[in-house]
């Protein structure tokens, strides 16, 4: 089972390396880098947090933007929490488990569910998440410290690594509505940013999401 741990943990560490370099380049401290990683525990929200602090946008816009960037945790936790229902100890701790849920650990648990009994899920998930959390904290620390000594072309690449990794993760999705929303967001993002930098994230999210959702509904109707 241990070999299953290594790839997700490696992906977490590699992406947090870039985040560490990003926090450093934004002029913020290492404790901020580590606490924001373990506390938010979702790269898009973390990147949005740093970008918002850099922009100096209004706090209300920042909170709406970050919560929208992390809104995917709502549908994820909806399908995640019931997995622990069969075990008494796992069910009781589910409000803690959900804090450690990321795209990586969610996929990791979902893949193992068929071979695990409800009683085995909580111990498996606890161990798996701990490894990912340690890998994430180590990655962000190394990335932050490396950013001071590395040449510009390496640091800038580490910062670029995260957003571009997510671009490919999302582009590989199979759900058409999400893909349409993703394409609409890619077009709308920079344009709406030019109109209103501070409010561009929540506005583009709602616009692009609705375009994707209704375009998908429309395509379904046309086909039927």
């Amino acid at each position: 089972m241990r070999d299953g741990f290594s790839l997700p943990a490696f992906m977490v560490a590699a992406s947090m390396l870039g985040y560490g370099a990003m926090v450093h380049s934004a002029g913020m401290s290492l404790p901020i880098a580590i606490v924001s990683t373990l506390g938010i525990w979702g790269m898009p929200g973390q990147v949005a947090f740093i970008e918002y602090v850099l922009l100096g946008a209004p706090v209300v816009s920042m909170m709406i933007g970050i919560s929208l960037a992390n809104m995917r945790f709502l549908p994820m936790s909806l399908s995640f929490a019931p997995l622990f229902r069969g075990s008494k100890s796992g069910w009781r701790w589910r409000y803690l488990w959900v804090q450690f849920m990321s795209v990586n650990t969610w996929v990791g648990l979902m893949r193992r569910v068929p071979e695990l009994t409800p009683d085995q899920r909580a111990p498996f998930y606890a161990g798996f998440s701990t490894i990912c959390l340690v890998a994430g904290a180590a990655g962000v620390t190394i990335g932050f410290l490396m950013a001071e000594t590395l040449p510009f072309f390496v640091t800038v690449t580490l910062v670029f690594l995260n957003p571009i990794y997510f671009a490919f993760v999302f582009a590989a999705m199979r759900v058409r509505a999400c893909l349409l929303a993703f394409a609409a967001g890619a077009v709308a993002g920079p344009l709406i940013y030019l109109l209103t930098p501070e409010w561009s994230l929540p506005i583009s999210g709602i616009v692009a999401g609705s375009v994707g959702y209704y375009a998908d509904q429309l395509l379904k109707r046309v086909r039927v």
Partner: protein
Amino acid sequence: MSAMSSSPWVLLIMAIAVTYLWRGLGTMIAARIDPESRFLQWIACVAYGLLAALISRIVFLPVGILEKTLLIDRLGATAFGFAMFFAFKKHIGLGTLSAAGALMLLVWARGEGIF
């Protein structure tokens, strides 16, 4: 009140709280809601649309260290990554490494005065 005028720690605690809101809410209503409902599908679309907007904005109009790179380099690296991604059956790792590698090469070459 602008984000800059507040301590980053205060903002961070607020960011952590609004993030946990979704996790906690999902856990709380998990027993009572249909995961296939239209509202949840729309929520997922909004999340993806917003993340796409963020990524696209970082490529076209970055803030911070990426601002010091050229738009044509960022676009070229992204396009190369997507070309590799689609050429190899939507391989996420290969697309990511190709895009990042291309950007590194371009920025290095400009730094060395190669072009």
